[in-house]
């Protein structure tokens, strides 16, 4: 029983590793194909061709791409993420602080949005067809349809410009007290919660409704079970698989997809770092960011799969 689960998990992890490698390879060659040249961008427009050629030589930019890729991978095995082209700093140092920031934002958003979305989804399913259900449905569809930059910009307009309650920019380093922290995180977290909750609400509601129409839930009804018992004891455990998958997909957005929110609020997270890196053709940095996004995604999906397996006695 347990060895079966262990086997499944190991298999999942192996697949995850292969996926990671393929993604890294694809990202590397996609960035190599970008127009523009790192050396000339670094030296600016006034640089002489000789200087550019010299820098290219020094940075091993003339080596075949595959060689550079392998060299970077080799470094990775030693825990070395490489050195940034743009400012000669180790990539690990550049990413470190940013990564913590992104995780903080993602963590706070998760803590708020997941319980909120699950509660709304489950209650909407329980009261299917009621006014409450319709309001939740309309709101969540509305939120899906509004692009996040709209939400972000409007909340800046409202809270920062008119009401002047919150700062428009989220400079994490200026936080000294809890109130500061709440003021700084409020708007990015609200915006992100809007973006990721809608999907989770819809999926949770659909999954619970689907299991509510199964014969075993009707059986529970005919045993005299209350509505709450039918949903929590009979429907929910069997809807867990699809729900955790929806949650994982939504949360994966918090790692790589938050670029718009980070930019609007000037939040020093990792997605913003990556976009800046693209502008300077800073390959090692792009590569490392992509790896982190991919890892985050794979971690969430694998975790969701494992939860789904554990919740199903037929697979356990």
């Amino acid at each position, binding site marked *: 029983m347990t060895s079966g689960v262990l086997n499944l998990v190991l298999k999942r992890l192996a697949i995850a590793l292969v996926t990671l490698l393929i993604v890294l390879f694809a990202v590397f060659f996609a960035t190599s194909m970008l127009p523009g040249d790192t050396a000339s961008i670094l030296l600016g427009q006034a640089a002489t061709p000789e200087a550019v050629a010299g820098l290219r030589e020094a940075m091993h930019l003339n080596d075949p791409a595959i060689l550079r890729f392998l060299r970077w991978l080799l470094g990775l095995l030693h825990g070395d993420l490489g050195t940034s082209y743009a400012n000669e700093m180790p990539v690990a140092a550049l990413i470190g602080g940013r990564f913590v920031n992104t995780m903080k934002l993602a963590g706070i958003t998760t803590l708020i949005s997941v319980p909120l979305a699950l509660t709304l989804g489950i209650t909407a399913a329980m009261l299917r067809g009621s006014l409450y259900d319709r309001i939740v449905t309309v709101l969540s569809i509305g939120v899906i349809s509004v692009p996040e930059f709209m939400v972000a910009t409007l909340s800046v307009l409202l809270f920062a410009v008119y009401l002047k309650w919150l700062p428009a920019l989220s400079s994490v380093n200026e936080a000294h007290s809890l109130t500061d922290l709440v003021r700084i995180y409020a708007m990015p977290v609200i915006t992100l919660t809007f973006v990721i909750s809608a999907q989770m609400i819809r999926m949770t509601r659909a999954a619970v409704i689907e299991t509510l129409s199964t014969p*075993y839930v009707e059986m529970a009804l005919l*045993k*005299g*079970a209350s509505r709450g018992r039918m949903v929590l004891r009979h429907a929910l*455990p*069997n809807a867990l698989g699809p729900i955790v998958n929806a949650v994982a997909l939504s949360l994966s957005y918090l790692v790589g997809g938050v670029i718009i929110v980070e930019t609007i609020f000037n939040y020093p997270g990792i997605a913003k770092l990556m976009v800046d890196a693209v502008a300077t053709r800073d390959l090692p940095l792009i590569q490392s960011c992509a790896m982190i996004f991919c890892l985050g995604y794979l971690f969430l999906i694998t975790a969701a799969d494992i939860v789904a397996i554990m*919740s*199903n006695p037929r697979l356990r």
Partner: protein
Amino acid sequence: MSNLVEVRNLKIQATTDAGRLVEIIKGVSLDIADGEIVALIGESGSGKTTLALSLMGHARPGCRIAAGEINVNGKDMAALSEKERAKLRGTDIAYVPQSAAASFNPASTIMEQVIEVTRIHRLMPPEQARKRAVELFRALSLPDPDNIGARYPHQVSGGQLQRLAAAMALIGDPKLVIFDEPTTALDVTTQIDVLKAFKSVMRAGGIAGVYVSHDLAVVAQIADRILVLKGGEVQETGTTAQILSAAQHPYTQELLAAFEPKPRQAQADADAATKPLLSIEGLTAGYGPAKPDGLPLVRAVDSVSLVVEKGRNLGVIGESGCGKSTLARAIAGIHPAAVGEIVFDGKELEPAAGKRSRDQLREMQIVFQYADTALNPAKPVEDIIARPLAFYHGLDKRARSKRVDELLDMVRLPKALRYRHPSELSGGQKQRVNFARALAANPKLIICDEITSALDTVVASAVIELLKELQRELELSYIFISHDLSVVEAICDQIMVMYNGERVEQITPDKVKAPSHPYSKLLFSSVPKLDPTWLDGLVRDPELVSQYGHR
């Protein structure tokens, strides 16, 4: 109040997809005395399950109890609030569902679900409830009663689940138990054990019951009284003996008549020198990875040989899991055989359908059990039937249209049906369209895989009659796969009995009374008879049962 149940002038309405209100129970009245078992019998759509569920005050989504009284144990279920009804469910009235396999929550153990009623209604402490459950398991002759509760639903067989569902119903000491077609999904050999267990427990506890079924023979074994329903109205009611021997209403007579299909007149002597149309030697097919010797890991069909002669029919009979459907799929090439020779019309066929010539494919057609899933729900009937006409015969639009009319006529469907979608047809009509599609190819052999098992008795016997007629007109041969002996008997010249992937015996219908192989004996003797004393008088060789019965 003298009776346990008194239903007066009950009306139940349903809202159709179009938003129209239709009455599906049209003023039914019904009495059940203490300890009496009443059977509700009728075809699908007659409202028997709806009526049974209404005794618990429950109407399925889209339905509603519109008028009338449902007095159960002195309380009017129709007038109570949902909360008050919930208090009576599981304690006063309990329910045994049609498919126990679907009605057990897959994520929780059997014991947890069996004693849930005692938790919900706080009847007794969990320890005591568990003890009581084990007693019930023993009374229902379940194997390993002390430990079976610790398993999950997918770990026990269908017949066991059905009895566990009965234990789940009985734990709250109900006065009335509703059985909703509890043995329909079971094999005949298993059905006997389940019926016997139900009967003895109900009798011992003096519990009243409602037994919903479409199978008169099963009902005859267990019910004191029978109520015949059609179109939401009571057609006839009487004691079991009255209904079986002196049915008054034409519909009841039709039901009884359909139960005993006319045996097929022997064609054998017409032309003695028939040629084999299909002959199969040592066919093996299965699932899972191939072992080094080329055989699959799990052999669903194990070196089966058979011959179908031109214009003759071969019946294949056996219980679920015996490999009869895999055999059909292997012959048709949908599931290529691992080993074995298939010679059709003098030429050897490739195992995989993809490698057979178009003409070979055309001459052998397969008709599946569930017309619902075999017909494309998005296409009208004419497109469904016209597809093989274009594919095999390359007919142009006008010729196709003409041929569709002819084919519909052949399967006795009105031409106007061609514009309908499958969802707008009844079960019998769908199966006829399914069959017309096979006929469209002009086949020589049609493999019928349980084509009547999803149909009501009366409808099924009409379909069988149709198959016989078409055979006479078109010189077809059928391979007729079924678990229902009476159906196979009615249409086949030869009957092959399968057990565990192997061919056990092949006999002719007139010798069904005296099979030679022990498994055939067990199988044939397990088919319920209309005689109400049949179950009680049935003596089975315990050795046979332990050898072949999946319990």
